[in-house]
């Protein structure tokens, strides 16, 4: 090729010619490395931050709850514990109330608020049911359940727990006349419990599982059976369901440490429920990285190289098809 033939090129400072070529090679090498890494990019940058975010309580739609809301929830739980504190029977009732709170926490905040009234309704039938049910294994199993309920992992597993509770609700329906005869809720309680049923129904439909659809049918049956006492029967069914769930766990384990076994089951189910929670992980990822967004791509090799920023138009060369290298500050003009 004729070296004196005019070619299209970019004039740069002769002093920078050598470094520009080296930077091009370095950028190309970095680009290749990036191309390999991006295929296996992680959904988050820091493991510890990811774990912390997963422990935070979330509201409806998956957004994090603010500090005020978290403190309100904790104060409400403390108030419920103080109100139910006292005799052994009341402790069992408090534990059952904690179990009943699991679906409410996930469904909506309004449901969590109405759960307080549901607990007060539960306290009335428990005065009768506790007289016939007080085995030690059930007490230990339910007592160990309470710390597990406090973790957000248990909230993630709530679809399975709610399905079981609702299935056992059918068993509770067989005792419907007894509950109706013994319990009669006031008007305000009736008004507040109904939204809970609606939110549970919508949440079950959103889950899209067969158990969910079956539970929805049973819930609708409860509503259609009796208009005046349906709100009273619903908390009763939760109460019975909780007892059956606890007794089932205790019966299946048959071990000297039922608490540890129950905790193990919760951890396993929490891991299993990680998959449907994936969209929230991406939301969390965005939240964590918004303050310092540094995920920008690197300049491609074809970008324009830096020009003579100092404005000193010393000897310059053509970059393009030049074959002979530059010698320090001396260069050949075209």
């Amino acid at each position, binding site marked *: 090729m004729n070296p004196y033939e005019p070619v299209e090129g970019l004039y740069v*400072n002769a*002093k*920078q010619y050598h*470094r*520009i070529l*080296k*930077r091009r090679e*370095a950028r190309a090498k*970095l680009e290749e*490395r*990036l191309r390999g*890494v991006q295929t296996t990019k*992680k959904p*988050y*940058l*820091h*493991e510890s931050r990811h774990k912390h975010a997963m422990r935070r309580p979330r509201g409806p739609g998956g957004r994090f709850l603010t500090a005020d809301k978290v403190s309100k929830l904790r104060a409400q739980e403390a108030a419920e514990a103080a109100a139910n504190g006292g005799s052994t029977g009341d402790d069992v009732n408090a534990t059952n109330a904690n179990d009943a709170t699991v679906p409410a926490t996930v469904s909506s905040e309004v449901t969590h608020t109405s759960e307080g009234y549901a607990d007060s309704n539960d306290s009335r039938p428990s005065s009768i049911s506790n007289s016939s049910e007080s085995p030690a294994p059930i007490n230990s199993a339910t007592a160990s359940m309470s710390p597990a309920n406090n973790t957000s992992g248990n909230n993630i597993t709530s679809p399975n727990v709610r399905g079981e509770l609702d299935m056992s609700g059918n068993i509770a329906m067989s005792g419907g006349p007894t509950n109706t005869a013994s319990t009669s809720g006031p008007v305000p309680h009736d008004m507040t419990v109904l939204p809970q049923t609606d939110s549970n129904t919508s949440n079950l439909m959103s889950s899209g599982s067969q158990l969910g659809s079956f539970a929805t049918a049973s819930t609708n049956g409860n509503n259609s059976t009796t208009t005046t006492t349906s709100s009273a029967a619903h908390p009763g069914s939760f109460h019975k369901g909780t007892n059956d769930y606890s007794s089932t766990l205790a019966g299946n384990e048959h071990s000297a440490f039922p608490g540890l076994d129950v905790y193990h089951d919760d951890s396993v189910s929490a891991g299993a429920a990680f998959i449907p929670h994936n969209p929230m992980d991406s939301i969390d990822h965005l939240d964590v990285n918004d*303050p*310092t*967004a*540094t*995920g*920008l*791509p*690197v*300049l491609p090799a074809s970008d324009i190289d*830096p020009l*003579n*920023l*100092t404005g*000193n138009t*010393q000897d310059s060369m053509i970059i393009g098809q030049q074959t002979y290298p530059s010698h320090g500050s001396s260069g050949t003009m075209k």
Partner: protein
Amino acid sequence: MSADGLDYTNLLPIANVARIMKSALPENAKISKEAKDCVQDCVSEFISFVTGEASEQCTQEKRKTITGEDVLLALNTLGFENYAEVLKISLTKYREQQARSASMKETKQSRSEEPQ
């Protein structure tokens, strides 16, 4: 930084770049996202450009640590004499500040030892 400790993008944090850009503007001025991204790329590339030259000079002289003089020499070699002059003044002031803080540290240490 990435999870495995390597920063593949080799880019400065965009929040710091935006703060430096904002310090040179009036308070009511606004900077678009594209402008911040563009300056972030330019600044990061310039740092790699100068550091590569300084590193090559250190390699030729069988040294492993890049010092302030190496950076100044690299700027002169690449034709950024004006920048080198300004940075030389900044380097002098930085060293004076380092010496002053060291002397203050010695004073505090002597004062703490005095009651004993």
